[in-house]
């Protein structure tokens, strides 16, 4: 009975699942494969601690976060994490032709105050959005623009990546972390991921698509949960052509920032950029027409 002995001695890894509400303003679902309950609990604690730590740096909602304090002061020595975020944000802004812009929240504020803003007002804001936003000098960061900066479209993915890695460090064997729709998987066994349907967003509605994901991040952007909140920083107009964009990338941070940019960019430009960055994407236009690239189709479950 060598086989039976082997199975008795070797601990069978088991899956664990934990859900939390009101994490980073959304819901958190953590799934783990671990050798036992103790390892699973340690991994869960590590995930929550890492999310809380990074929220204290990146959050634009918490007045005491490092980002908020830096913005209030205008220039300061910043932590390596915040410097990395600023560096990444600047580079993504250039790579997406300005479709991702950390100052774009100013457009949302403007439209919330006045759904039909004047042309002069809009032109001034457009010009401010095109200008330099900050300057990095060694460990110092100087804010140049007077516009408030938010990094949610990049930070949430970044936090998902780091939190998943934290789980792996303390005994998680396979990790699947879902931060309100932005996912990160780490492990050897591929997992199934469903993409929510933009036109029937009920939680039990059939998904738009399903795909296999392994060691990757998946993010989806669109107005189906929070209404129109995406504006084109290049034109200052609400982004209405694309109603949902999903990106599968090597990291959740890349997936997150590109999903936001692809909601703003013309679909053909998004598809071209997806090839440049080597990511899979699935776009849905307001007309119902969908576009995907070969890389997405390779992972799709039919």
């Amino acid at each position: 009975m060598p086989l039976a002995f082997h199975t008795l001695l070797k601990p069978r890894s088991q899956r664990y699942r934990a859900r939390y509400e009101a994490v980073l303003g959304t819901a958190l679902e953590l799934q783990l494969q671990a050798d036992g309950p103790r390892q699973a609990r340690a991994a869960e604690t590590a995930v929550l601690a890492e999310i809380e730590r990074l929220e204290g740096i990146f959050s634009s909602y918490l007045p005491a976060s490092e980002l908020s304090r830096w913005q209030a002061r205008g220039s300061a020595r910043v932590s390596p994490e915040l410097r990395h975020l600023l560096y990444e944000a600047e580079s993504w802004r250039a790579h997406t032709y300005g479709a991702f812009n950390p100052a774009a929240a100013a457009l949302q504020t403007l439209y919330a105050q006045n759904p039909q803003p004047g042309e002069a007002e809009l032109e001034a804001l457009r010009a401010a959005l095109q200008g330099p936003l900050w300057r990095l000098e060694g460990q110092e960061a100087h804010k140049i623009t007077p516009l408030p900066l938010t990094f949610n479209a990049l930070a949430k993915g970044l936090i998902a990546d780091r939190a998943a890695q934290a789980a792996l460090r303390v005994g998680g064997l396979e990790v699947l972390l879902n931060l309100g729709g932005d996912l990160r998987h780490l492990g050897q066994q591929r997992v199934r991921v469903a993409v929510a349907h933009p036109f029937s967003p009920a939680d039990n509605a059939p998904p738009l698509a399903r795909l296999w994901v392994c060691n990757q991040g998946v993010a989806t952007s669109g107005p189906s949960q929070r209404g129109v909140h995406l504006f084109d920083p290049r034109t200052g107009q609400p982004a209405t052509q694309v109603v949902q964009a999903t990106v599968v990338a090597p990291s959740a941070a890349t997936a997150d920032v590109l999903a936001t940019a692809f909601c703003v960019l013309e679909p053909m430009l998004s598809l071209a950029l997806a090839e440049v960055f080597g990511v899979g994407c699935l776009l849905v236009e307001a007309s119902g027409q969908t576009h995907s690239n070969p890389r997405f189709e390779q992972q799709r479950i039919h």
Partner: protein
Amino acid sequence: MQRSFISRRNFIYRTTGLLLTLWAGRSLAQARWADMKLDITFEFVGGSGRYRPPYVAVWLENAQGLPVRTLAVWFEQSRKGPRWLNELRRWYRSNELTEAVSGPTRRPGRYTLSFDGKDDKGNLVSQGDYYVCVELVREHGPYELFREKVTLAQTSFNRSFNLAGELKEVSLSYDRQA
């Protein structure tokens, strides 16, 4: 030897029989589900900071109070893991992580479940009165039951209920299927 033919009398008898059957069937059958859907949106709230979701069940009962369709049963495993359930190895698929959903950033504690007129067996139900039930409980915590009678027929409606407990709001939207 029997010969098969349609005589005039035979024809009249058969046609009358068929018409009687159709008429009886029509009066017996209730109006079928009319291509509508009912969206049940509910929101629960926690205190400040992150919180574990409560146990939630959402289902529909018919006018007699019998369950027709279960839309959700959400429960959390204990801190000791999914005890005993995972011993059902094939069914629990203990070596696989379950499917996750990627979508636009969701609001915490707010969920929508759609009822497409099918019962638990997948058969279309008939039009009529139903109860929408949302039951919520937390260990050593509150117990709440929302149970509201609605008429699911040809007329669409939108109704919203503001509640005082952890279950803060339930809204029902009944409309044509898109």
